[in-house]
Structures are given as structure tokens and as C-alpha cells.
């Protein structure tokens, strides 16, 4: 590794930390070391957005900065290496003038208790400067920011009235050029950490440290530290590995490197199918999608991770790599059992390849949760049916939240394949789900709701194909 320690830019000034605890969070560093207390801790688990900051990274072309709103409460300091940081304190001019977002929010009654306000300011400021993922409507950009006082109206109004702001990043580009582009590593109280630049380096590091914890966006591992009070041993940070961050659309497939963030993949996934895009829109808030990766979502093996069921239904393949080579498996085969994946020591998830659905594929992807935005599903169902001349010639049906892993519904698929594409077939397929799944009752839903709603999704698919309106999101008063 070329550099020891962490260096980042804060308001143009270099912060050089030769020694860091790799599991220290950016939020704590801001609040209790740098005494920038404008950034708040609301939950310390990436769910409320009070700690939102903007992190800028040099684009691959080296001439511009990609800014991303992230939750600083679950960003580890090494993830900041080679990046630029903007906090709420950065926005006020030296003359005391408020930036446009602050100005309009202060005048518009957008704050009451004020505790969530800096986070909203950062999200909306990010939108005004064209930060990543911010082409969405204001409500989506702030879906990861919770406010308990205002009811959001004055915040939405403030955001909608904002003109795009130009920021001159030339100085940041120059400064980043001096510190970005190098791998980094360090050691803290006997715990080593690495931030490699290539997947080759990663393969080598993992061979040498098979016990190492891989950290991409830290949207999961972050909570082990802040909530589980765990202290990870060796940590390898994946955020700077350029060849794991590639998005390729060619040869009838979309290939996503494992370190591709959800926000960056959103558009390409939406091009595969609009409902896949809608699913991605509802994964976390923007801050979570700006950190969380496709690879991490798969690799952590969550039974309810929202990405995998849809990708399985679309026939995704996973490439796993180690120093001794690569192997490719169907995505569904990766998930062996609860907490157990087909991942060998020294191996890592390199990429996922999703074939573009054929034109005759009937697709329905549905996420059912208590709240539409920034929630985890009770049930996530995905259906990809090949229908030719009124006959279902192929079916891939996958669910999350219905079993210990995301997985396909074999009996349901069997009840569909070779049958007429009609109401009776879909009803029989819904019935067959009872053979596929024996879901749990947990905090997100009861077994009976899960099985009933899962079956109803097939009916909903059928009715949608008949032109019936099925989405409450598409109705107005």
C-alpha cells in the first residue's frame, strides 16, 4: 500500500491522520475530535439522516468531483481516505451569509426543533449541486432524512424551490489529485486495515488475511460496530477498487462490479425493467444507496435483502473470485442457509451479471413493507414469466422474507410452466407457494400475512396484465 493512514480534505484543508482506528466513525470524529457539532447523531445506524454529510471523490476522468450524501454515523474513517468532505459548517460563507438551501429553509419554517435540520440541509444542498442520485424528486432525495416535527411540507417546499447551484470544484479537484489514487493501509492497536486499489490486490490481501472483514459501504458492518459494539479485526475497504466499481451494459446483459453502489446502478437497473428501478428507489434512503453496494447486499446473505430476489428472478449470475481464479454460479446457489453462503476462504464476490429480459417476459417485482420509503420488506417477490402464444414457457419466481435465504419458488414455478397464462394458472401458482415456503412470524410481518400477500402478488400480476390499476403509488385524489 502506498500510504499509511487516512488523508481527506475538509473545506479544502488537508486532514492527515497517520494513525486511525479503522472502526472509528466519521460522525464521532467530526463531533468529538474536530468539534464540528453541527452534524448530529439521531440513530447511529444510518436510518435517520441527521448525520448526513457530502463526500466527494475524484471522478475517473480526474477532472470533476462526484459528491455523495452519506450517513456519517456509519462511515469508517478509512473510507474517507482520498476524499473531500463537506459538512453543514462548510456551507455558510465567510461573511456569515447563508447558502441558498440554508437561507430558504430558515425563512420557510423548515425547522422546528432543528435537530434533523443539518441533515436535510446537506441532502438538499447535495441536490442543488448535482450530487449523485439527486436527479430524483425532492421527496426521494430526502427519504433517508427523518423529521418528527414539521410533517415535511416546509422542507419539501424549500427543496422544490431551489435553483441548481454551481460550485467551483477546481481547487478540490487539484487537491484530491494529490491524495487520491493511492491505496492506503494502517494499523491500530494490533488491528490492520487495507484500502486496496485493484481486485488483484484484493485477491492477494484476502489470501494473506482470509479472516479479514470486507467493508464496502458499511451499511451493515457499520451497525456491528455502533450497535453490536463489536471490534472488527483486520478490515479491507473496497471503496477504492476501480475495477469492482464498473457498470457494463453489453452483450444483452448488465454486469455490475461488486462495489457498485446502489445509487450508481439505479439507472442501469431501471433500464432492465422499470419495476426493478422502482425497487432500487425504495432500498434505503439515498444516503444508504450512496454507500451500500450490490455486492455487499448479496454477500452479507440477508434473508430479506431486497436486491437478490429480483436479481434471482431475472437469472443473475454471480462471479466469485480468489487468488486462485474465478467461478460463476447462479445467484440463487450462493445462498446456502441462514447465515451461510457459498463463499470459500479467500474468495470474494466480484460481479453480478444480469441478462436483459427477453421482450416476451412478463415481469412483476414487488416490495411489501410497513412504509414505502427507507424500509426493509416483509415480503419481496419477483416474477419473470416467459409467455408465448398464451402459454407460460418459462418461469422464475423468487422471494425474500419468506425463508431463511432469498430463494426461488420451485413449486410455484412448476405450477406455471407449460400452463396457459390465465387467471386459473396464476391462482394455482399462488396456491403452490404454500409448498415452497413456510415463512416465519417476526417483527416485519406474520407468517400468515407473508403467505397471503405473496400469493396475492400473482393475482396482482395477472390483473395488471389485464390493464387493471394495481399500484397505490399511481393514484391521486
Amino acid at each position, binding site marked *: 500500500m502506498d500510504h499509511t493512514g487516512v488523508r481527506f480534505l475538509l473545506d479544502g484543508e488537508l486532514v492527515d491522520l497517520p494513525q486511525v482506528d479503522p472502526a472509528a466513525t466519521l460522525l464521532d470524529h467530526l*463531533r468529538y475530535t474536530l468539534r464540528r*457539532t453541527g452534524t448530529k*447523531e*439521531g*440513530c*447511529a*445506524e444510518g436510518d435517520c439522516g441527521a448525520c448526513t454529510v457530502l463526500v466527494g471523490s475524484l471522478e475517473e476522468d480526474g477532472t470533476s468531483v462526484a459528491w455523495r450524501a452519506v450517513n456519517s454515523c456509519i462511515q469508517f474513517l478509512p473510507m474517507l481516505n482520498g476524499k473531500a468532505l463537506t459538512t*453543514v459548517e462548510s456551507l455558510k460563507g465567510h461573511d456569515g451569509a*447563508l447558502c441558498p438551501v*440554508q437561507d430558504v429553509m*430558515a*425563512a420557510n*419554517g*423548515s*425547522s*422546528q*426543533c*432543528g*435537530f*434533523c*435540520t*443539518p441533515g436535510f440541509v446537506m441532502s438538499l444542498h447535495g441536490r442543488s449541486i448535482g450530487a449523485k442520485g439527486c436527479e430524483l424528486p425532492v*421527496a426521494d432525495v*430526502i*427519504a433517508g432524512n*427523518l423529521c*418528527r416535527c*414539521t*410533517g*415535511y*411540507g*416546509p422542507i419539501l417546499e424549500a427543496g422544490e424551490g431551489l435553483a441548481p447551484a454551481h460550485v467551483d470544484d477546481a481547487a478540490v479537484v487539484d487537491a484530491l489529485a494529490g491524495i487520491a489514487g493511492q491505496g492506503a493501509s494502517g494499523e491500530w492497536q494490533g488491528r490492520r486495515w487495507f484500502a486496496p486499489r485493484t481486485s488483484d490486490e484484493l485477491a492477494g490481501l484476502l489470501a494473506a488475511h482470509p479472516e479479514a472483514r470486507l467493508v464496502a459501504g458499511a451499511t451493515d458492518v457499520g451497525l456491528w460496530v455502533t*450497535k453490536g*459494539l463489536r471490534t472488527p479485526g483486520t478490515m479491507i475497504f473496497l471503496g477504492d477498487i476501480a475495477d469492482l466499481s464498473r457498470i457494463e451494459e453489453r452483450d444483452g446483459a448488465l454486469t455490475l462490479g461488486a462495489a457498485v453502489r446502489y445509487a450508481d446502478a439505479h439507472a442501469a437497473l431501471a433500464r432492465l425493467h422499470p419495476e426493478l428501478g422502482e425497487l432500487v428507489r425504495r432500498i434505503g434512503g439515498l444516503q444508504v444507496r450512496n454507500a451500500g453496494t450490490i455486492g455487499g447486499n448479496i454477500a452479507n446473505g440477508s434473508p430479506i435483502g431486497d436486491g437478490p430476489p429480483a436479481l434471482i428472478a431475472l437469472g443473475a449470475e454471480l462471479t466469485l473470485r480468489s487468488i486462485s481464479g474465478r467461478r460463476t454460479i447462479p445467484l440463487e446457489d450462493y445462498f446456502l442457509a441462514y447465515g451461510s453462503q457459498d463463499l470459500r476462504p479467500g474468495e470474494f464476490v466480484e460481479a453480478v451479471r444480469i441478462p436483459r429480459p427477453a421482450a416476451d417476459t412478463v415481469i412483476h417485482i*414487488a416490495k*411489501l413493507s*410497513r*412504509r*414505502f*420509503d427507507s424500509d*426493509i420488506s*416483509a415480503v419481496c417477490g419477483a416474477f419473470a414469466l416467459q409467455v408465448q402464444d398464451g402459454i407460460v414457457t418459462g418461469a422464475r419466481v423468487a422471494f425474500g422474507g419468506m425463508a431463511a435465504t432469498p430463494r426461488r419458488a420451485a413449486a410455484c414455478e412448476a405450477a406455471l410452466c407449460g400452463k396457459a397464462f390465465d387467471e386459473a394458472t396464476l391462482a394455482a401458482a399462488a396456491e403452490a407457494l404454500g409448498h415452497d415456503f413456510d415463512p416465519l412470524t*417476526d*417483527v*416485519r*410481518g406474520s407468517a*400468515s*400475512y407473508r403467505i*397471503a*400477500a405473496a400469493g*396475492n*402478488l400473482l393475482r*396482482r400480476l395477472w*390483473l395488471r396484465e389485464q390493464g*387493471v*390499476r394495481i399500484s*397505490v403509488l399511481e*393514484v*391521486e*385524489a
Partner: protein
Amino acid sequence: MAERDPAWKVLPKPSRPHDSARLHVTGEARYADDVHEPAGMLHLAFGQSSEARARIVSMDLAEVRKSPGVIAVFTAADIPGANDVAPVAGDDQLLADGEVACHGQALFLVAATSQRAARVAARLGRIEYERLAPAITIADARAAGSHIEPAQRMARGDAATALEGAAHRLQGRFAMGGQDHFYLEGQVAVATPGEDGQVHVLSSTQHPSEVQHLIAHMLQLSSADVTVEVRRMGGAFGGKETQAALFAAAAALAAHRTGRPAKFRCDRDDDMVMTGKRHEFEVGYDVGFNADGRLQGLSLHLASRCGASVDLSPAINDRAMFHSDNCYYVPDVEVVSERLKTNTVSATAFRGFGGPQGMLAIERVIDHVAAHLGLDPLDVRMANLYGPGRDTTPYGMEVADNVAPQIIARLRATSRYDERARAVAAFNVASPVLKKGIALTPVKFGISFTTTHLNQAGALVHVYADGSIQVNHGGTEMGQGLHVKIAQVVADVFSVSPDLVRITSTRTDKVPNTSATAASSGADLNGMAAYNAAMTIRERLCAFLSRAYAVGESEVHFTPGGVLVGGQTLAFGQVARKAHIGRISLSSTGYYATPGIEYDRSVFKGRPFYYFAYGAAVSEVVIDTLTGEHRVLAVDILHDVGRSLNPAIDMGQIEGGFIQGQGWLTSEELVYDAKGRLLTHSPATYKIPTASDRPGHFTIELWDGENVEPTINRSKAVGEPPFMLAISVFSALNRAVAAAAPGRRTIPPLDAPATPERVLCAIAAHGAGE
């Protein structure tokens, strides 16, 4: 304000932004955790009970003490005075002594050099328990005969006879969940030891005086030795009325015992586990009515889960009873309120303070009656409103200021309710999967603490010789805009700009013996106290100027252009300086006690409220009958704040209150397991509304009447009443669910919160004829 200045017109005051708005958006507003930590600061964490109910056989804290960074560990035996952080009943221990009564209860307190060190160590206690059978649910507690106090009964006439004689009669039951406050700033307190045993505590509390008194008793100090200060809270909503005391007392104990400053900043998940929530209720009713839906007799049973201690549950459940009439007259009525003691965290104050539960109960009854008769529920509501000759509540208070009928009529017209109700019906005929519902529900909310002696407030106003003004009052700022309203009140007394008025942090050494900032009373009580303080100074200035300029006092006028006296105009600053040189006191306290209220709890009769605040809302919703998913599409609100002290602030309270109420009734679900452990203890699983849950169409209008009572500026309280406007969402959801089986003349079995799962379940049960 009985003697109002005739020059002071009773008009809405101008909107002004929150006094801290600029500090909020820049991140410069300081909350307790933002204050620079002094060297040697200790950080605190509680060891918590893993059991809902148990006897503590032994606590082995050796590993805790050995954990890196730990400076001290305290147990109940280390508390010098009273081991109590309860508001009234003395039954909330700071640290468990002998037994635990709920999961998460504090057992011991760790003080360490860092917050993480404290939290890590706090998990290392080895506790041996003798488990006892817990009562987790209302049913468990009822079976065990476990109550925090005897059931209370409020009645008028003879409900049983009226029910027997009614043309129609229905029985029903339903349940509504609790609610976590989810203030964005968690519980936090910083205690700094002073000389001679004194202690200063910076606390995020709605009730600094109570925290002061509890800490004094806990440390065996006098109240004069304990100062509690609050600059602002990052949200509270009732969750920092009594619940802040636990953390403040812990910090004070550690500071007192170690001589070092100590901070308790609670982790979010611990906060959600350890602090109280809105009461969960189960409601049973037996209602008699005529063919028009007019209620003849009602027997209402309210059962609530109060949790492990008394806290404020008696008053909260009383308020549920007081609001179980909402805007409706029932000639013969009986309300029985059962207060169950369970081994779950003690339920506590939350915006509305029991009012929402009582009000939802009666609105549910009305919806059931309407469904049974096949009438529009709004017509049934109209048929039952208080009015001439039927204007006395079950507790004997005359509804003298009833504007509900006018508010409903105007909103019905402006929201085009009837036209939209027809459109909703047409939509439902044509839409097999999606169904809509629409409902208009009113609110009548009683203003005053029902514990009469709490209705008092004090303020301290200083005019400095440069003409700047500093105001201190007993109220706390939690985002509701109390300080800006009071600055406006004081500024108006002197006819100066509110910019000249600095409101300082709330401190028990400036204004003593205050009531909690609660019951929506902050502006009513403290505004009047500040007004009285300012008026005292103004009267002194008048007398002084009259002497100095040899004019009558009536010839001294405070105007926006300056003080007019004897043909001259003096800037306010000049007046202040002259008065100072003239040896006139420019500082005064002010005091206010709400007049005219009295209430006898032993018979549930009297006038517990000074006045009522009113409002109404129309909500339109859509549901997916295959998944239970739903959205609130449109909301129109007309709400009564009297003559507003600050319309922009009041509009913010109305919208925020509504959305919070919508969350209570839709997505916010508290789930406990069979062992009494809260499973929804973080925002990952507990879902308050996000920006996209705000209805796309949302209008708010203020009713243009004034308070009939001489409140400050003839305004009305606004903190809590709008919360209950969201009952219209629940009512609309019921109608949407019912639309899935249009032939049925009954109400769907939908409990609150109406999660997608509950909606889908209600559709199935309703369709199956259950």
C-alpha cells in the same frame, strides 16, 4: 390579560420564523451534547435488565469494573437519598433495587472515560435472576388483577336503560397501539459538580423543575443546591416530560460521587427500550342510537397498558375519558377506564396525553353506527354534535365556545367533501384492486392541565439600560416555537421589535417551581406570565415618565416609532437609560394562574378545562386490497388557534401534529415478544412517516375566530389538538377497507395502527363476514 390595552388590537400577530431558525440551518444551535466537553468528562451507560419481571438474586459486576476505561460503577446502594425518578408516585427507581419490573430497566450505572467504554462495560454484568411470571399484555394484566389504580368511572344519566330503550344497538371492540416519540435528539444530560455539593445539570427535559427536585431528593440536597438548565430540545412530544429524569439523575449521581463532570447520552436503541411510550388501548363499546344515527346511550370501556409504574398514567387515562365525547353529546353515558399494570416500560405522556385514544374510541363508535345504518359517517357526526340544549359534557362542563359545527360546515364545503365522497364511490365501483376512502373528523380538545394546580407559570423580564430585553420563563423550547411567541408578546408590550428580545435558556435558578411544558399550555401560561412581568415594568416606566415629564400617565404611549411622552418621542433605549438613572427597577417577575378552573376527580365533575380548541380534517386514502398497502392522498384541515400568536409557527404545529398522528395510526407499530422485549427499538424497524408519506394534496387553513376566554392575545393552544385530526386517516382507511365488501353493513375489524398487514387482514375478515 383581563385588562387589555385598548391600543393593542386583538389581531393575529405577524408570522416570524423560529428564533433559532438560522442556528438550526447552520448547525450552530447547541443541544446538550454539543456543548464543549471539559477535560475529565465521564461518559455513562446503564446495565439493563434482560428480564421483564424478576427478583435480582445477585449482581456480579467484577467484569464491568475491570473493563478498560471504567472509572466507577454504581448500584442502588450508592444512591445517597431517594432511589426515585418518578413524577408522582415514587415508584420509578433510578437503579433497580431487589426486583426488576420491565425488560431494559436500569440495574447499574457505568462511568467511563469514553462513551463506547461505558457501553461495552455495561454489557458485562453477570446478573442472577429469579424469574417471576410477567404480565406483558393487557389480557395478562387483567388475568393477574394487576392495575396501577382502581378503574375510574365517569357517567351521566343511565346508560344501561338508554341502551335498552334505543331503537338500534351495537357492540364492538377494537385496539390501538402505542407510539414511540422518536424525538430526533435522544435522551441526554450533562451534570457538572459545583462547590459545596452543588450540581448543575444540562438536561434535555420538558420539566426542569421536576428534574431539579428529583435530583435534590436523590442526592439529599436542597432544591437550592441543584440547578437544571435547558436551552432547547431536539424534539420531545411528551417523551421528555418525565422520562428525562432517569438520565439526568444518573448524570447527577455520577458527578456527585466522582466530582467529575458526567454525560449521559443514551443510545437510540436503549432509549427506545428504556423510555415510555404512548399508552396502548383496548376499547369496548355498547351503543344505542336512533335511525338517524343520533346516540341515545353509550357504555364505553377503555383499557390501557400502563406499564410497570404509575408515571402519569392516572392523568393520561383521565384525559382519555374526558375526550371520549369528542364533539358529541350523548345524553346517557358511562365511561369506565381500566388502568393495567404490565411488565413493560412504563407508558407516559405523548402529544395528546390520552386524548387521542379517547377520541379515536368515540369516532370508531360513530363509524360503526354509520356503517350499520348505511349512512355517511359525516352525517352521523353532524347529528351528534354539541349544540344548544345539548351542550354539557359527561363531566359536567358546559361547552360554551362550541365552533365545531361551523368548522365542520365550512370544511365540508371548502374541501368539496360531498362531491369527493361521490367520486370515491364511483372510483371504487370501477376499481377491483384499489379502493379509496374519505372521511371528515372533528376535534375538540380541552386546554389546561387536568391536575389543576399545574396551571401556573412564572417569568422573569429584564430591561437593560441599552433598551435590550432579556426574558426568561418557565417554559422549555422543544421546537414548538414557544420562545419566539413569547418574545413577540414581550416586544408588543413595549412596542419594540422582537429582535430586541433575547430569550435565554430555561433555568430553575431564574424561574422556580415551574410546571412541565406540556398539555399544549406553554404559550398560554408562560406567555401570560411574561406579559405580566413586562407590564409591571411598563407601568413603572409610565409612572416614571409621567413624573419626569409632568404629564398624565395616559399621555405616555409605547408605539412602534418610540415612546410618546409630553409631545416628545423617545427611543425605547433612551427611556430605559433615563429610567435607570432615575433609579427605576427594570426587572420584574411575572406570574399567572389560569382562572376559573376547578375539578373534583372523586366524582369526575367540574370544569377541568379553561377552554376548548377545535379543528376538523378531511382525509382521502387509497388501499391495495391484495397487499394492504395504502397511501394518504389528500388532506384538508381547518383548525382553530384563536387569534394566532404566530400563524407560521401554528401552521407548522398543525402539519407536524397531523403527520405524527398519521404515523401513529398507520406505520408506527410497537412489537413486543412474549418475554416483554420490545422488538421495534430502532428506526430500522419502527417506522415514522417519511417525506413521501405526506399527502400530495395538503391544505391547512386557520379558523378566524378568537378565544372567548381572555388568553394571551385571545389565542388558543396548538401543540396537541392537531395530532387528533389524523383520526380522519384511520376513519378513511376503514371506509376503504369496507369498500372491498360493499354489501356489508358493519365496520371492518381494523385495529390501529393500520399497517398493510392489518389492512389485508381486515379485508379478509370483513369480506368473510366476521
